[in-house]
């Protein structure tokens, strides 16, 4: 029984990790004042890029790097549209998602059915031997550790470094930041690229670790969940972590309930993770004051450097 439970808990980690990567990236983008709805598209492109790079090179590291690169490349298209051409962010983001889903299906058609040896768990010496906890916490693949490290890194960057402070300032009021002489467009460009790379890695995790294979549209809406997580987590990295693991947890739990043959409509069960995540995050973010303070005030607004007169 314990073994079953541990196996289940471990799958929760795998289900949560891609959400965590994508949501952390989007959090940084939104904190800089840009709303990129193209997470889903960047993620699915990351999935095929990681899969293809690994298949051709045989190197998992190159696969992850390739996924991050392609994610950032997709993001740079978006950044050019919204920062340089000042296109509408919502429309550009949606276009990026549609573009990514279509392009990945085209590029990936020859990879359907190709097997891949995915990422192996890395046991942490000394700790992984511990009973129960060892297998649960210290025996994951490298991307899981990286995702958890990124939570702390993003939190530290935003709250403790000068660069993070400037990034938040740009997201809060781009006009004020510009008046102080900060390069709003370049800071946002960098944030968008980071968000793209993180979405790319999230995709790579899907095609290289979660289910080591490629299938069309394999991100299956996780990019949208990541977007929602950022908002419901009130732009706070640690809450993104909670939300991602909660979503992962209910996803796996409902699969097991379905597997156990309990007589509940499977459609209802499939709704559960979404429902549970929304309910819990709404409850923890019901304090309006905190939400108001955390929400980047310039989110989604187009920045004209000439400004009003």
């Amino acid at each position, binding site marked *: 029984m314990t073994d079953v439970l541990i196996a289940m808990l471990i799958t929760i980690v795998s289900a949560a990790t891609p959400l965590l990567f994508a949501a952390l990236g989007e959090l940084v983008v939104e904190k800089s004042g840009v709303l990129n709805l193209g997470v889903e598209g960047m993620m699915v492109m990351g999935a095929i890029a990681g899969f293809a790079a690994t298949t051709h090179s045989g190197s998992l590291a190159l696969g992850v790097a390739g996924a991050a690169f392609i994610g950032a490349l997709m993001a740079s298209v978006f950044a050019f549209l919204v920062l340089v051409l000042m296109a509408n962010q919502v429309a550009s983001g949606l276009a990026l998602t549609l573009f990514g889903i279509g392009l990945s299906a085209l590029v990936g058609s020859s990879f359907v059915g190709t097997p891949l040896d995915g990422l192996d768990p890395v046991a942490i010496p000394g700790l992984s031997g511990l009973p129960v906890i060892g297998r649960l916490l210290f025996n994951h693949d490298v991307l899981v550790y990286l995702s958890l490290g990124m939570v702390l890194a993003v939190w530290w960057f935003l709250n403790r*470094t000068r660069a993070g*402070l400037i990034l938040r300032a740009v997201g809060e009021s781009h006009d004020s*930041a510009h008046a*102080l*002489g900060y390069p709003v467009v370049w800071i946002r460009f960098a944030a968008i690229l980071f968000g793209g790379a993180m979405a790319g890695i999230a995709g790579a995790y899907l095609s290289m670790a979660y289910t080591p294979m490629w299938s069309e549209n394999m991100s299956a809406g996780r990019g949208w969940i990541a977007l929602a997580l950022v908002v419901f987590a009130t732009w706070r990295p640690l809450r993104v972590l909670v939300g991602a693991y909660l979503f992962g947890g209910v996803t796996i739990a409902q699969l097991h309930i379905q597997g156990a043959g309990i007589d509940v409509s499977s459609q209802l069960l499939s709704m559960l993770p979404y429902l549970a995540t929304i309910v819990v995050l709404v409850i923890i973010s019901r304090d309006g*004051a905190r939400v*108001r*303070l955390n929400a980047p005030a310039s989110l989604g607004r187009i920045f004209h450097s000439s400004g009003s007169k």
Partner: protein
Amino acid sequence: MSTPDKQPLISLSGICRSYPGVLANDNVSLTINKGEIHGLIGENGAGKSTLVKIMYGSVRPDSGRIVFNGDEVSIDNPAFARRLGIAMVFQHFSLFEPMTVLENVALGLAGQSADAALAGRLVETGERYGMPVDADRTVDELSVGERQRIEILRCLLQDPELLIMDEPTSVLTPQESNALFVTLRKIAEEGRSILFISHKLDEVRALCETSTVMRGGKVVAQCDPREESAATLAKLMVGEDLAEVERPPRSASGAPIFEINDLNVPAPYPGASALQSISFAVSPGEIFGVAGVAGNGQAELLAALSGETRSARSSVTVNGESCGHEGPRARRSRGIGFVPEDRLGHGAVPDFALTENAFLTGHITEPLIRSAMIDHARTRTFAEKIRATFDVRAASVETLAGQLSGGNLQKFILGREILLNPRVLVVAHPTWGVDAGAAVLIRSRLVELAQTGAAVVVVSQDLDELLQISHRISVLTSGTLSGSMATADVTAEELGLLMMETDGGQYAHTA
């Protein structure tokens, strides 16, 4: 008068800068000496802002030269200006509300982290100049005066040689302004120069030893403001004698037509003011002034008066009929007109033509609709009438509202509401950011409206304005309204003291 031993710090000569269709700076020259407080006065659109932006590097001049400390320089960006030793306090503060004071200060200093050392320097500098601050509070908790202190301290920490202050007193109480002047004199005594931009002539006369007057993009005079009167300065600034608006004697004061009884509104969002038991009554022919520093419940009160925030049925009464529960349209049909604080996006739709904007509130009480369709001919006539009667300078009534200057747009919005013949008119900050000529017109139209028998409520931060046109004044502090005082019996200083009361409760309900 600059004494011969004074060294010039910055000297601009032959500065020209044009924007499409307008020459914002036309061969402007200006010299500021070391340790001098230099006044720069002029109407909106006189070119002050452009000149200052050129000095601060956010706008490049088309031609002209700048000499700073004896060297010719080209100020390409604000970062370079700051390296030279030029610091600027903006009119619309460039602070980030959700961040702490310390973080805001760090953002204004090159390569500075928000650490304990900086906090120490901040507190120490604050004490030295008589501006105590708490480094860990978030800016959204601070009053406007406190925010300005942060801006000034942020500049002082850069150890500037020239401090540019753009309309610094427009949001301050008289007492806060006086405290600011003490600080500014202290800064100037250290040998730093200050460029003080204002259109409040009394302040320039009180503070500055020399001043430059701009009009229409040109420098029209250099003078010692202490040797001029406010009237002569105003004439230089406007180019003509300004008619004074005279408050008419109160016409027959009948029963109140507009009554607010025990109006309570919870704060709409954290940090906003809750309105607590507000009561006042305005009679036909009367102008009632609500003074107070912005952020003390003005926006909440205006929303409650207009119906954007609904309240208890009995809390708002027009002509004896309760309408506290009604929304804006229902209240407009009762003959209440509104001129909101925010002209673009609230008072008018920026991307709509003036005719369309005229229709938006006009159709509620004017016959601008025929068979469920907009009657374009009538709407156009109505808009033309507003333009002609209120001297709205726009190319045509098809001009987009967003293309008008602040003063012209305000004249248009006010004209639209007045021409609808309201029984009650609620006006927010009628002349905020409006040039002196337009301000005179707006104030006299409000007085005329009252003379025709309407009740007028004016919410404003400008005490001089309220003292000039209103019959009675109350002060709004932290969501509480003081008892009303007859304007003839009260001075700006007394009102200023009331405005600074953190707990105005003791003055409430004494009317």
